[in-house]
């Protein structure tokens, strides 16, 4: 399966090789045939010229049939006449091809002007062709061999050029997926460097995300240890109870310990769901309705602490929500405000629109957060110092995750008049956008 898929990817190297090979082959064949053919015909013409040269010498009686040694059979001079049985005397003067004993001959026939004797200067066609063929091959072979050499060199060059890519692939193959170090940029061709930089950027981002995840898992394991330790100790303590009342008190503490563990596990699951991005049912909700429900849920908490808890301002707003994330976010914000506000304090919630955005604001009259902790407080499992309230330090992490999903923004700041202001801003969905 995989192998097939890989084969479907075009290889630049193979493509380059194929095209260079095909085009070179076609052009070289044409060139070689042209050159060879031209040479062939030129060689024959040249030989005709030689025959004519010799004939003109014979005409001037400077050459006779006995001048050329018998051993050299390439050119033959014969006197024509009744006693010559090979070549008939009826041939016209000039260049022509005739048959002698089933062999083709090229002959030049001439008549000596003074003696009126006729001669034929001839050469066997087969021999002539062989000579012409040889000279055309002499042209053809050097071209072909040089081109083959050229192709080999091109092939090596292409291979050499693609070598950095191959090295890169080997380097990537060696990565075990846990340590995402950047790919080496040195000695890389200029054309590949931008691509490489992008990959390295991606690797760095992946590395960061992975580190964050690993840290989160380590933190989560560590955080689970605390409630588990408490539970193990509290359950051991029950055995030591002396009176019925004592036992009940210890059991109550154990139950509270379990409740804390349950809350932590629930929050971890919430966070995992939010981070996994799937299973997010998107809907358009009334900002006001969500806030109202949360306020109704949390009212008893505020009441128990005698806190003046209410809405100071509200406008009708509709926004996008995914997987009831808004309700999580608002509950965390209001719950925190109530927790950190002393008995008899005030918690104010307001909803307003500001430059096309819906703003959800919670202000408490607690003692605020030390400036040094304002950033740290967003870290998973971070709990505000001197925090007497049992919490898991995950509330704000979950809210941040919700904000990320909904494209909103959270700010937390100390108010000048004391206490903390939690502010959440998200784009408004107008009624006409709904349809």
């Amino acid at each position, binding site marked *: 399966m995989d192998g097939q898929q890989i084969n479907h990817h075009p290889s630049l190297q193979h493509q380059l090789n194929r095209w260079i090979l095909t085009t070179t082959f076609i052009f070289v064949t044409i060139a070689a045939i042209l050159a060879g053919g031209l040479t062939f015909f030129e060689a024959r013409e040249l030989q005709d010229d030689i025959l004519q040269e010799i004939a003109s010498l014979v005409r001037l009686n400077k050459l006779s049939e006995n001048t050329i040694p018998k051993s050299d059979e390439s050119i033959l001079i014969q006197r024509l006449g009744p006693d010559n049985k090979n070549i008939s005397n009826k041939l016209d003067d000039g260049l022509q091809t005739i048959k002698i004993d089933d062999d083709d001959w090229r002959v030049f026939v001439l008549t000596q002007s003074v003696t009126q004797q006729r001669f034929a200067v001839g050469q066997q066609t087969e021999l002539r062709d062989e000579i012409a063929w040889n000279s055309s091959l002499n042209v053809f072979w050097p071209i072909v061999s040089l081109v083959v050499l050229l192709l080999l060199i091109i092939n090596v060059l292409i291979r050499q050029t693609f070598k950095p890519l191959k090295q890169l692939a080997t380097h990537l193959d060696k990565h075990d997926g846990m340590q995402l170090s950047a790919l080496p940029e040195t000695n890389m061709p200029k054309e590949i460097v931008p691509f490489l930089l992008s990959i390295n950027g991606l690797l760095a981002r992946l590395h960061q995300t992975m580190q964050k995840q690993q840290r989160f898992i380590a933190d989560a394991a*560590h955080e689970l*240890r*605390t*409630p*588990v*330790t*408490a*539970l*193990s*100790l*509290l359950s*051991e*303590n029950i055995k*030591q109870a002396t009176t019925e009342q004592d036992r009940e008190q*210890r059991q109550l*503490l154990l139950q*509270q*310990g379990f409740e*804390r563990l349950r809350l932590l596990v629930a929050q971890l699951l919430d966070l995992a769901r939010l981070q996994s991005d799937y299973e997010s049912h998107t809907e358009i909700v009334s900002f006001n309705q969500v806030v109202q429900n949360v306020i109704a849920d949390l009212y008893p908490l505020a009441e128990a602490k005698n806190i003046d808890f209410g809405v100071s301002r509200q406008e009708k707003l509709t926004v996008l929500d995914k997987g009831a994330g808004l309700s999580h976010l608002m509950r965390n914000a209001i719950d925190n405000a109530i927790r950190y506000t002393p008995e008899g304090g005030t918690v104010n919630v307001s909803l307003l629109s500001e430059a096309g955005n819906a703003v959800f604001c919670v202000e408490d009259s607690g003692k605020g957060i030390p400036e040094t902790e304002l950033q740290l407080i967003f870290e998973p499992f971070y*709990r505000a*110092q*001197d*925090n*007497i309230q*049992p919490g898991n330090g995950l509330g704000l992490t979950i809210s941040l995750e919700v904000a990320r999903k909904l494209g909103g923004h959270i700010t937390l700041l100390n108010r000048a008049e004391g206490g903390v202001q939690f502010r959440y801003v998200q784009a408004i969905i107008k009624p006409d956008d709904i349809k």
Partner: protein
Amino acid sequence: MRILLVEDDYYIGRAIQQALNDAAYAVDWVKDGDAALSALQAQDYGVILLDLGLPGKDGIEVLQTLRKAKNSIPVIITTARDAVEDRIKGLDYGADDYLVKPFLISELQARIRAVVRRNQGVADPILSNDVLELNPVTHEVKVDNEAYVLSAREYALLHALMLRPGNIMSRDELEDSIYGWNEEVASNAIEFIIHGLRKKMGRETIKNVRGLGWMVSK
């Protein structure tokens, strides 16, 4: 014996305090490093149980401050950090023992007994003089080969005396070593406990030095 518990988690703190009270230790519980250091200035403790991940000054800083001031009180670190480097660091900074959460109460108690024993320079877990043999594990005392089981308070008081036989301990010192901060102490509580002890072990085992306090013989 009085123990300083430094633990920022409410439920773990409650649980340890409860368990140690059950085992007749007086426990003072503080939730951060600064409170621990001020408690140490105000009071003598037999052992400190020190969590490392504390708000403000963390456990290691408390330990450093303590050891710099030449305070040799036994320290047991109780923490969720279980990496070997953390343990080494804790011990190197002067902790006497290192207990990783979650742990069992019985293990914590055994370690408390062990560090106290080592701190007193006693190898034998049984505290004894020429008349008494006190077993810190079973809370039993042996007199003339007769064993008596002690109540938690009785044990705590006798243990305080037996740690330094021949030393006179005042009422305040004895109260300090068996009652935590938040415990109400009746004015005659010490006399009442000593009365119970003497009834079991015999009058002569605990001597009263008028105007000063009580002691067991060497």
